[in-house]
């Protein structure tokens, strides 16, 4: 135990987070003011915690100031991840149509720059939403970007024709092991706060963390994921457990990122922040979730990301 890695007195287990290839995209929502932009983003990212049942994992990446957006208005960047390109292509137009088109003053743009020659895989935005204009929609092409202007009751909804679909990584993670729920909550919130300014990643679960870490499969045939009993404190003496006796609560921070570097950086920043806040305050360890390395080809070893 003497050569075990520690941060602020918190032991870091010698294990790795196992992550998977996903399909990703980035969208920018703008509006006349940041309140409308946030409302649209909130609606768009609702029910987007896990691909297990939500279709995609989607969350706000970062709030953008006026100079950072295409039309010079306040904006919000959103990242979305799905297990397949077709699922992403199905989910994004639906959410855009019901959550952004409907929200006053908003406009929707591609958050990944590059035309078809650079990113041949595309997800329809205005390409499909334009039909809401019932023939009154107008297309506008500026440089190599094509926009649709759809008449709506507050003026017009401006929407980019499509957005590139790129490769991403989902399932980067770390688990915070604590003596109590209060202790892991404190550490978890510190980690999430530290992750918020980082570009290229999202933590799609509520408040950035999940308590229902899952394993693959179930005793019930209909389920392909079920509770990860090895990390459930109440099952410490019932089922095979990976928890020490003094661990009474675990929270998992799940990170989806545009590439491996984004996830590595986020894991490092998040774990360090959690340990700073939780060390001496009931945070008893940090570990990571994996499936023995058999399912995902991206392995983020805690010792390496924290180096």
């Amino acid at each position, binding site marked *: 135990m003497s050569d075990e890695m520690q941060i602020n007195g918190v032991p870091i287990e010698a294990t790795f987070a196992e992550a998977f290839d996903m399909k990703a995209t980035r969208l920018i929502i703008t509006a006349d003011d940041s309140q409308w932009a946030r409302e649209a983003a909130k609606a768009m990212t609702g029910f987007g915690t896990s691909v297990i049942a939500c279709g995609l994992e989607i969350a706000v990446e970062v709030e953008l100031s006026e100079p950072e957006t*295409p*039309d*010079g208005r306040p904006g919000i960047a959103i990242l979305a991840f799905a297990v397949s390109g077709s699922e992403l292509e199905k989910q994004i137009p639906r959410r855009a149509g019901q959550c952004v088109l409907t929200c006053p003053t908003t406009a929707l743009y591609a958050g990944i720059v590059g035309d078809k020659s650079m990113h041949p895989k595309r997800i329809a935005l205005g390409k499909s939403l334009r039909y809401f204009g019932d023939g009154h929609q107008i297309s*506008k*092409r500026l440089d190599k970007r094509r926009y649709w202007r759809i008449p709506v009751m507050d*003026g*017009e909804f*401006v929407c980019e024709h499509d957005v590139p679909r790129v490769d991403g990584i989902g399932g980067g993670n770390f688990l915070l092991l604590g003596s109590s729920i209060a202790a892991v909550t404190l550490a978890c919130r510190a980690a999430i706060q530290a992750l918020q300014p980082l570009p290229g990643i999202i933590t799609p679960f509520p408040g950035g963390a999940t308590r229902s870490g899952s394993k693959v499969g179930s005793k019930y045939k209909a389920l392909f994921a079920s509770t990860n009993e090895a990390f459930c404190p109440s099952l410490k003496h019932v089922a095979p457990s990976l928890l020490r006796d003094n661990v009474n609560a675990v929270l998992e921070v799940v990170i989806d990122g545009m590439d491996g570097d984004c996830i590595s950086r986020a894991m490092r920043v998040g774990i360090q922040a959690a340990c700073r806040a939780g060390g001496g305050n009931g945070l008893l360890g940090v570990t990571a979730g994996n499936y023995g390395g058999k399912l995902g080809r991206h392995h983020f070893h805690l010792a390496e990301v924290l180096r």
Partner: protein
Amino acid sequence: MTRWTLSLLQPLTHDVDASPISLESFATRSVADIERVQLTGMGPTVRIGDLFRVGRHSTSNDSIDCIEINGDVERFHHLGARHGGGRFAIDGSAGNWVGLGMRDGELIVTGNVGDGAGAMMRGGRIRIDANARNGVGGPCSSSHTGMSGGLITVGGNVGDYASHRMRRGAVVINGNAGVALASQMIAGTVCVSGTFLAQAAYAMRRGTLVLQTHVDFCPLRFSRPSVLESPMVALLRAHLTPEITGLRAACRLLERVASGGLKSRRGDFSVGGQGEILAICPDSN
């Protein structure tokens, strides 16, 4: 990269087709070969070497190849035709069909140009510092469509039929325009900061025409002006910034349009058009 300089030795007294003067045709030739290139036209055939002092300079300062023509070459037509990249600069005035069918790169004329500048252009940028005659960004001969991409900026005035049958891209005019501005326009963007004559936007199908003020368009052909608040205007302004166009008056117009008080007309209904005319209405200032 390579910089070709052609300094005019004597003015030409008849018109010639100058399309052989191009970066693509010069690329594989020596100075002596280029001097032997013949230009044909409405008079005796002439050689480039008879008219210009030709220079070839290899330079590491420039990141692109360029041709520089020094002198007024109004009798030289089709300069920069099908220009596909690099820089083509004319320090003086040029003839007709400058940048005809241009595909990419930059073409700069510090003086005036004749008819058909940027006709059927597909990409790149043409900068005309003075005036352009008729048919800027329009079609050529029997073609159905005018320019289909790129940007044309004119520091002075343009003649008739500017942006006629234009299909895509942008034309920004710092001065005034003649008759039939943006007539039969199919799409794209035209911005005129000065005045314009009759038949503007005639048979316009789609696209955007940005003007200083709304004039009395026929109510059967165009809608009444209505207030437009749209982020599209900001996108337009961001697309045509002073850094991009270099035209102060035109950019001031876009700035005013983007800052509000904007009204929009739709038409030309006589051809089922959904074109758009944007202008600041006096009563909304």
